[in-house]
Every structure is written in C-alpha cells, then in structure tokens.
C-alpha cells in the first residue's frame, strides 16, 4: 500500500453521532492492516469505545459496520460486510457480529469509507445519508412505518436509483429483539437483532451513494481468482418450474401446485449464485404476485412434516458441499464438471441418513413463501420465526399447552391467515405478540420454561419411525434456536453437531455467524464412529472453525466459498491481490487467533463471560437424542469444553486466557486490563472436575 494511494482499503472510517450529527473521520491506517477489516476491525472499534455496563438499547451502544480489504474488489465472494454491536437478541445481551451480502459494502467504499459507526440517539425519526464524503442526518417521518421494500424504494425515489441502503422495517422501529437490518436482494443482518438497535437510535436506515474507486493492487490476480475460487460455473439461470425440493440423497419432497424458481447472487461482483429467487407468490401487501430471495432455510418454511435428509458431503468442505448451490438449482452443471468418479471417498461422501418425521406443518409452497415474505417485509429474523416461533406454536398446540394463551385467533400454523395474524401482532406488539417481540428465549422464560420450553413434543419420529424425544422449544444457546445441532431440525452426523456446539461455546450467536466446521474427508470418516477419544480432535476442529470464521469475515469473503481445503492460502491470496501486502496462510491463522482473543476480551470485560456461563450453553439440547440417537452427557460436555480451552490457550477452570496467551498474540495491554479486573488466571491449569449436572433433563 503506497502512502498516497490505497489498495483494497479506501482510507477512512466515519464515526457518526446520530444524536448531535457530529461526524469524526478515523483514518483506516490507524487500524488496518493490523486489525484487517470486517469482523476483526469491528472487535477493535468496539473494544476501544464501548464500556462495560452499556445495554443493547442504550445510546452508548454502537452499531459498527465494516467492510473487508477485499470487499468490492471483484474477488469472488468479496461483496460481504460485517456489523457488530451489543445484540438485544442474545440471552443475556452480549456483543455479537453478523455478516451480510448485497452491494452496500462496495458502495460504502465508493463513497470513501471502509466502515462507519453509529452511536447516540436521534431526537426524531431520522436516517443517515452518506453521499461520497458528506454525511448528514435527515428527517425520516415520511419513511417511518414503511415496510422494508417500500423504505428502500422511498430512498431511491429521494436520492436516485444508484443509492444503496440499510433499512429497518416496523419490527426494528418497535424494538422487536429479533428485528433485522436489510439491504438489497433481501440480504439482512438478522440474527443479532441489530434492527432493534437501529430502531432504538430512532434511525430508519442508512442511505449510501458513492462514485469513487476501489483499487485492487493486482488486477491480473483478481481475474485469476475469478476463474479459480470455488470452481465457478458459467451456465444459464433459467426460471425453472419445480414440483419438489431437490435432495442430495434422492428423497425429494413433492409440492402439489409447484412453484417457480431461479437463482440470485447475494453480493457485488461475486461469481456465484447461492440464493434462490422464489417467484410469483402472493403478498398481502400487493395486488401483483411477488418474487423474493431466499437461502436454504426457506425449504423448511415450505414444508416441515419431514426434516431434510443429509449426505456427509454437505459437511465436508469441497466444491461438492455447496448446499446452497444445490438449493439454488445451479448445482447440476457444476457437479458434472468437478465430480471425479474415481474418487475413493465418493461413496462415503454420498452416505448419510434420512431425515426425521417432525410433523410441524404441511407442505404448502404458498404458505411457506408468505412466512418468509412477511419476515422480509417487516424486517424480522426468519430463522427465529420459522425455526423457533412457528415450530414452538405447532408443538405446543399438539401437546395442548396453548389453551390458556390468547393468540386472538385459533393458533394453526397450517393456516396462512394465522401466520399473517401472528406475524402482525408480534411486529406491532399487539396482545400476546408483545411477549414474542422480546424474542423466543425471553418469551418462553416469561411463560415458564419448564412447561413451555421443556415439555416433550411427542409427534417427532426418527427415520425408522421410532419416537425421538424432542422438547417443544428448539433452543440451542445464547438465545438462539438450533442450527446444525443434530436436534430439532437439520440432522447431521454426531461429530458435526458436537463440533458445532463447541464452536458456539466461543461465540454469542448461532453457527452461521461462527462458521460451519469443514474437516478433511478422511478425518470426518474417523470421527464418524462417535468415539469419545476424538474429544481433542473435535476441540481442534472447533478452534480451527472459529479461526476460519474470523478469517473470512475479516477479509470480506463468504461462508459458502471459504474455506477451500484444497488451498488453505486462498484468503491470503485474496488479501494480497486486493492490498498488495504480503500474506501467508499462517499469517491469516495468526490474525484469526488475535481476532478470537479480542472477541474474548470484549466478552470477558463487558459481559462477564467465563466457563460457568459457557459450559451450560447448548448443553440442555444435547441431552436429547440426535439423528443417530446419541446424547451428550454432562461429563462429556465438560471434557469437550476443557479440551477446547486447552486448544485455545485458556485457563481450563475459568475459560480465561492466561497472560502468556494474550502476550503471544501482541495483546499485553489486554492482559493488563484483565489483571486489573481480577480476570488473569495463573498459568498451567489444564484440568477441571465438574460438579453435578445442573439440568433436570437427564
């Protein structure tokens, strides 16, 4: 990076006080490349600025939006950006980050900024306009109350077609803890509930216009990466009539009436098309049929009588594993190009297991699309709604638990009118909806977790027709529902769900934010026998997954492209192509170790994270049988957490890094802070004996 000319980065970060309108320009050079960008840069900015004791809805909470050095450079998958801040949807409230596609990261860089910080609270409903170097806070009375797509259109009407935006819908305005912030292509920061934080700042959105340049240092290498990263395929994207959900194992699910689908790309300049466009469905807000962009999860909204079946291929990183490619129907031609029929692992990769009969709701494409569409329009996290709220209502209804609760109409998840009604009362906080606007984890605790969370849902059967004990509430941890836990939804191999749970132990939200584990095929085959002797290996896999997540989210790449197990230096090559700075695969790993530690520093200083808090997350759900009938014992959970702490260089009894760990990664000052806080444990404690299992379900 020459002094006068930035490569990859564009040079400034805007710190915007939406209460006073004051804008401070921070120089990117003071933060990068040391703190890389994206997620790691978020950690640094938050650590510097937000003191312990600040809550999600306090004006002192900051919404930090950052791009990576590769964002917008034309490198495949590089359109991504990150948002961080205190999440109101975490339980307890805690620092969290999310990653999102769209064009917004690139456009922010065209406007001359690598990131921005929103702090304070506006006196009136407002929005922020970033127009090249100029930043203004403008009144948003006319936009307040608009749903997502209307708000986006309002901004385009006011500021021109080239404007890109981040907006909230009514859910964010009404401080629903699961509210999203949405940008183009229905891309959203959803799970952390940052939409409610934006709403608490009286902000409807951020509109960005820019006509500047992003300069990659090595244009030739950018073009090379466009041809090589992730085996991009070049073929038509036809609108395809479908009558079934495709499946990797041949257990397709039929949909009477059928539907239309094509593929969409999530982020600017990417060579892939992982998202699907669901076409011609009904909207309660429009006379015309509408189209919407979805990822894999919409399959569950369409029909949840049967959970999906799975192949091992889906859990191993290789080009074979691109689930969303399959989902977006851009899979077949891609597969034909890269499948090697002589691959000795092919049989194992295609092995797997049939899904479970979960009996939550019938297959109905129109109703499923409506469910997702309402989330898109109101700006609410569809994972929380589909996976948790509506499965919970269905299970509770079947178990007779809802008789004392007044939903304002008969709760029936098969009835589109109920879906519409329920989403409306939640988003506008009417009647019992007010309770669910607090997020499912909080709502269930208010109602009484023993009855409304832990009651067994008896209409759940595994693939052999055996009843499979599953609770009515599909809670995993940190206030989030199951997501690759092997329970409830999304069956997976036992080694996989154990690793996912360990990954979440170090995180504050569900696994998309933390990354999917991607072992090598041979290793996965060994883990498959469910031998507890793999404890250390699974801990190492979880630690590697967390690092990998920080690499991709800090550089600005994407979960569906990164990592490439055939080329561990992929992100280093991307970084160098963008910035011109030398980087190696090991350098990236080192960056990620430091990024992990900064995340940990925030969680320890601001939110009191320690072993006691972490070991009990994701554990209760693991006591129920997974897809193979396996459960995790309290002792095993403790062993796995201890192994993970050892792997990370943390003191095992407390889960706090030791001074040597902080210092090894250049964070001596953090060690000093921890010492002042009484959170610097002695070196060398590598064992821990747990007390009795504190949970009722055994």
């Amino acid at each position, binding site marked *: 990076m020459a002094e006068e000319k930035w490569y990859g980065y564009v040079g400034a970060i805007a710190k915007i006080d939406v209460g006073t309108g004051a804008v401070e320009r921070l120089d990117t050079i003071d933060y990068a490349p040391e703190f890389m960008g994206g997620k790691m840069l978020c950690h640094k900015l938050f650590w510097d600025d937000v003191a312990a004791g600040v809550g999600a809805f306090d004006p002192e909470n900051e919404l930090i939006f950052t791009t990576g050095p590769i964002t917008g450079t034309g490198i495949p998958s590089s359109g991504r950006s990150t948002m961080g801040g205190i999440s109101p949807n975490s339980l307890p409230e805690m620092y969290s980050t999310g990653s999102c596609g769209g064009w917004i990261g690139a456009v922010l860089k065209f406007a001359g900024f690598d990131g921005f910080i929103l702090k304070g609270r506006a006196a009136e409903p407002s929005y922020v306009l970033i127009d090249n170097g100029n930043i203004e806070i403008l009144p948003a009375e006319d936009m307040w109350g608009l749903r997502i797509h209307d708000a986006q259109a309002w901004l385009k009407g006011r500021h021109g077609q080239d404007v890109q935006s981040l907006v909230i819908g009514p859910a964010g305005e009404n401080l629903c803890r699961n509210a999203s912030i949405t940008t183009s*292509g229905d891309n959203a920061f959803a799970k952390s509930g940052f939409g409610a934080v934006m709403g608490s700042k009286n902000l409807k959105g951020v509109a960005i216009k820019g006509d500047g340049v992003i300069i*990659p240092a090595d244009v030739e290498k950018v073009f090379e990466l466009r041809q090589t990263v992730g085996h*991009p395929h070049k*073929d038509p994207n*036809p609108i395809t009539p479908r009558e079934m959900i495709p499946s990797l194992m041949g257990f397709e699910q039929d949909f009477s009436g059928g539907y239309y689908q094509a593929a969409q790309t999530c982020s600017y*300049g990417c060579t892939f098309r992982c998202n699907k466009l669901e076409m011609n469905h009904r909207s309660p807000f429009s006379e015309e049929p509408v189209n919407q962009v979805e990822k894999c999860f919409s399959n569950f909204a369409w029909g949840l009588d049967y959970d999906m079946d799975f192949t091992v291929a889906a859990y191993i990183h290789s080009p074979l594993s691109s689930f969303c490619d399959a989902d977006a129907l851009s899979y077949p031609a891609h597969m*034909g190009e890269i499948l090697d029929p002589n691959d000795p692992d092919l049989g194992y990769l295609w092995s797997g297991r049939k899904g479970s009969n979960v009996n939550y709701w019938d297959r109905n494409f129109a109703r499923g699309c409506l469910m997702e569409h309402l989330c898109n329009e109101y700006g609410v996290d569809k994972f929380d709604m589909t996976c948790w709220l509506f499965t919970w209502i269905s299970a509770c209804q079947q178990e007779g638990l809802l008789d004392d609760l007044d939903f304002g109409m008969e709760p029936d998840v098969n009835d589109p009118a109920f879906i519409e009604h329920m989403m409306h009362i939640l988003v506008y906080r009417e009647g019992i909806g007010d309770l669910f606007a607090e997020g499912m984890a909080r709502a269930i605790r208010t109602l009484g977790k023993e009855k409304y969370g832990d009651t067994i849902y008896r209409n759940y059967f595994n693939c052999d027709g055996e009843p499979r004990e599953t609770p009515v509430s599909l809670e995993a941890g940190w206030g989030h529902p199951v997501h690759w836990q092997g329970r409830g939804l999304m069956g997976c191999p036992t080694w996989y769900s154990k690793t996912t749970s360990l990954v979440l132990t170090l995180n504050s939200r569900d696994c998309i934010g933390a990354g999917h584990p991607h072992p090598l095929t041979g290793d996965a085959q060994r883990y498959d026998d469910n031998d507890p002797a793999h404890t250390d290996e699974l801990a190492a896999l979880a630690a590697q997954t967390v690092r990998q997540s920080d690499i991709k989210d800090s550089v600005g790449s994407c979960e569906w492209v990164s990592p490439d197990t055939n080329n561990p230096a992929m992100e280093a090559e991307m970084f160098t192509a963008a910035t011109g700075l030398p980087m190696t695969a090991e350098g990236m790993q080192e960056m990620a170790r430091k990024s992990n530690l900064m995340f940990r520093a925030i969680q320890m200083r601001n939110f009191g994270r320690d072993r006691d808090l972490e070991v009990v997350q994701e554990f209760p759900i693991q006591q129920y049988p997974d897809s193979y009938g396996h459960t995790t014992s309290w002792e095993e959970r403790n062993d796995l957490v201890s192994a993970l702490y050892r792997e990370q260089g943390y003191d095992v009894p407390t889960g706090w890094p030791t001074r040597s760990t902080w210092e090894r990664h250049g964070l001596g000052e953090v060690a000093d802070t921890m010492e002042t806080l009484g959170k610097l444990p002695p070196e060398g404690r590598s064992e821990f004996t747990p007390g009795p299992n504190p949970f009722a379900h055994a």
Partner: protein
Amino acid sequence: MAKHIVVAPREATLCTGCGSCEVVCALTHDGVVSPSYKRISVQLDRGDRMLHRIYTCQQCDDHPCYDACPKQGEAMCIDENGIVYVVSEECIGCGLCKQACPYEPARIHIARRIGSKKRVAVKCDMCRTRPEGPACVEHCQAVCLGVSGEPGPWEAALAEMAKAAEAMAAAQMEGAE
C-alpha cells in the same frame, strides 16, 4: 447498427444481479472497480420483483454523441466497425455527448478522472482492443450477455447444461451404490 451488447431473453436465462459485468468492465479498462468507470450498468429491481435491468451503449448508427462532440475524431472517434469510442486523453469532459444520448438513462456518463479534478466521458467501446472480445460477456456467469448479430452464449450453454445434469445424475447413482 454496429455491434453492441445485448441481453438474453428472460426465458433463457435471468440476470442474477451480481454486478460482475460492471466490475470486470471497469477493471479491464481502468484497473479499478467504480460506478464512474463501468460502461455497463445493472439496475437492481425493487425487492419484491428482482428482475434487474442492464443498460449499455447501443452503438447507434446515427451516433448523436459523436455528432455532439466538439473534438470529433480526437476525443470521440468511430472505428472501422462503427464502434464509437472515447479517447480519454483527448476528452475535455464537457458532457455534450451525454446530453445528446437519446436513451434514458444516458449510456454515457461523465466521471472524475482518477486522482484529478478533471472530468472525462466514459462509454462502452465493445472492448474493441481486447483480443478475447467484450469482458462483460466473458465474465457473466449466467451467460446473460451477448453481442448483437451473434448467437447468444446462452443457447449453447443451455444444451451443455442438460448434458451435465445427466452426467451428474449418473455419477450420483454410482456413488450411492
């Protein structure tokens, strides 16, 4: 009409809204990614339709942009194939060509020169000096873009795709056995 970029019929293939055409266009010509230096524009559709539009120069036979240029033959030129192109070094950035463009939005825009306050006209030149031909056509992964008067890349690709799907199904069967 001279050759120009055309967009595939939606029945054959749908634009995925990736913006790669914009990206590679600016990278090829100027080594940057920028709305100021792209010669092709993707207008993302409203969120509830997602049917995006692509805009680029139609290389009109009557070339009103060329006619309006006060430095005809120096700043705005026409090559032997009828392609109207801008010679940046000569362009004074007056914007008359943009005003003369009959299309809405105009297919020429006036950009700030990189590292300078001066302005320059930017328009599609069909990558006339690029041996591989138009970069946007080459890099559109959804084969949405083609060249007028030539068979669209989507036609051959549709046939290929059907063949590959069959091969994949066969390989999957073999693996499962």
